[in-house]
């Protein structure tokens, strides 16, 4: 396979190529050249799903199903850890199910009330911090339920929760609880961004990216109440979206200019400590 064929087969190779071309001032020509390649009637994109080892252990009959199951695997984990976090922050037993009453409005916390010390969270950010914990717990559960339903409606295999459950060391303050949540949200947004390129169906892709930006909102808001950089922020193992290197955004772009991403197999490895028995 020559380098041009390699380029056509791999979206990441294409990106690296384009980054070099852009750096050389040839980006537009490269885009024009590539835009005519690989299109097929009936689908928007050429199939990029050439490496199933990117998603070890994730079920699916095709790329879209595999990415959705990858997302579901992460949302199951995320929703369960949010539920545990919310129970801890509100003084309920950690195993309690999410209360059926949905929180309403920007300050809504449903039936939940803060029952732990805020820790180091600034006094004027404690109420919104707790409201975000409540609101986002329901959102992550809704993401999980949506993905399960969507996969079932496709007749696809559906990823199952880990039988032994999930765990995290949340500590005892709202600050420590949200610090764990922050890490999970930051992983979630990177996971979606690193997997979206494998998808083919434009509607499923758009929906996945819409979940992705919701996780980004959560990350930004939680970072804000914790007094952390609101991002995008370069964290260990990240890849930047411009040249895919494990480095902050290349010059002249600031660290906080483009969201970073993680490759699926990296994410699946990173979340293992949260999976009991894994």
């Amino acid at each position: 396979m020559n380098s041009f064929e390699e380029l056509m087969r791999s979206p990441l190779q294409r990106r690296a190529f384009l980054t070099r071309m852009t750096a050389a001032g040839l980006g537009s020509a490269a885009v024009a050249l590539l835009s005519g390649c690989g299109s097929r009637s009936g689908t928007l994109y050429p199939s990029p799903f050439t490496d199933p080892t990117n998603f070890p252990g994730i079920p699916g009959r095709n790329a879209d199903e595999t990415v959705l199951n990858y997302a579901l695997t992460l949302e199951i984990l995320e929703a369960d850890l949010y539920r545990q976090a919310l129970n801890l922050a509100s003084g309920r037993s950690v195993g309690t199910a999410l209360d059926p009453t949905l929180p309403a409005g920007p300050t809504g916390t449903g039936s939940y009330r803060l029952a732990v010390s805020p820790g180091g969270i600034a006094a004027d950010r404690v109420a919104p911090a707790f409201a975000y914990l409540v609101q986002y717990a329901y959102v992550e559960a809704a993401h999980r339920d949506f993905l399960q339903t969507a996969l079932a409606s496709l007749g696809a295999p559906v990823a199952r929760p880990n039988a032994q459950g999930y765990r995290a060391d949340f500590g005892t303050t709202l600050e420590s609880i949200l610090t764990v949540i922050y890490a999970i949200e930051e992983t979630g947004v990177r996971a979606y961004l690193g997997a979206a390129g494998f998808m083919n169906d434009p509607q499923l892709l758009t929906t996945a990216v819409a979940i992705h930006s919701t996780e980004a909102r959560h990350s930004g808001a939680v970072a804000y109440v914790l007094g952390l950089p609101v991002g995008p922020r370069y964290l260990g193992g990240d890849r930047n979206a411009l040249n895919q290197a494990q480095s902050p955004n290349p010059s002249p772009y600031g660290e906080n200019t483009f969201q970073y991403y993680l490759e699926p197999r990296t994410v699946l490895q990173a979340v293992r400590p949260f999976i009991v028995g894994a």
Partner: protein
Amino acid sequence: MPQMTGAATGRVTPPLRFSDIPGQGDIKVLNYALALEALEADLYAQALLRLTGGGTNQLGRTIPGLGLNDSAPDVRYVREFGQVEAQHRDFLNGALGGQSILLSALRTARFDFGIETQSRQQVVDLLYTVENLGTQAYLGAIKFFATKTYLLPAGAIQATEARHTAVIAAISNALFGPTKLTAPLAGQTANINGQVNTAGIDSTAEPDAVLATASPFIVL
């Protein structure tokens, strides 16, 4: 460039449509994104002048400053996000090179938000509205990409807009009362290219609708 004599003079009418955006396929989508990023970057520049010491916008109009400093959260983040939006604009403009909309349809474009008379709260409201619209605009444009070449950087910009939206909501709620959601709530109705979704996710916005909202701010 026409002489500007009043707020409404020279504004784009009828509104731009997606069909007016130059290029085909990916080039068209990138030019659409660039038009929005150019607007956003200039909005942030004018918002910072308005909130702080004042100055003059690209139309030559004087913007009186409200005299806030960087200890105010809106000022701090308007400064930070404004630099980011300018870099988004520059990235897209550089990627498009000679095919950039800033060399063709928007060659003479300036932006008039009427910011010189807006209150602090109105400025923050406008930033929230525009960032939210930007987040939705990128989502609505995905289906128009002809290839995946720019999906990754476009997604990386879109997540950044989403972060900005959430943080501006948090700041606005703290300064002016809690009226803005940082993110969609579970059960809230989202629109994904016309398909209803209640999983608590962002909606798409169609290019023609986005351009209809943006056009009154564009002066040619």
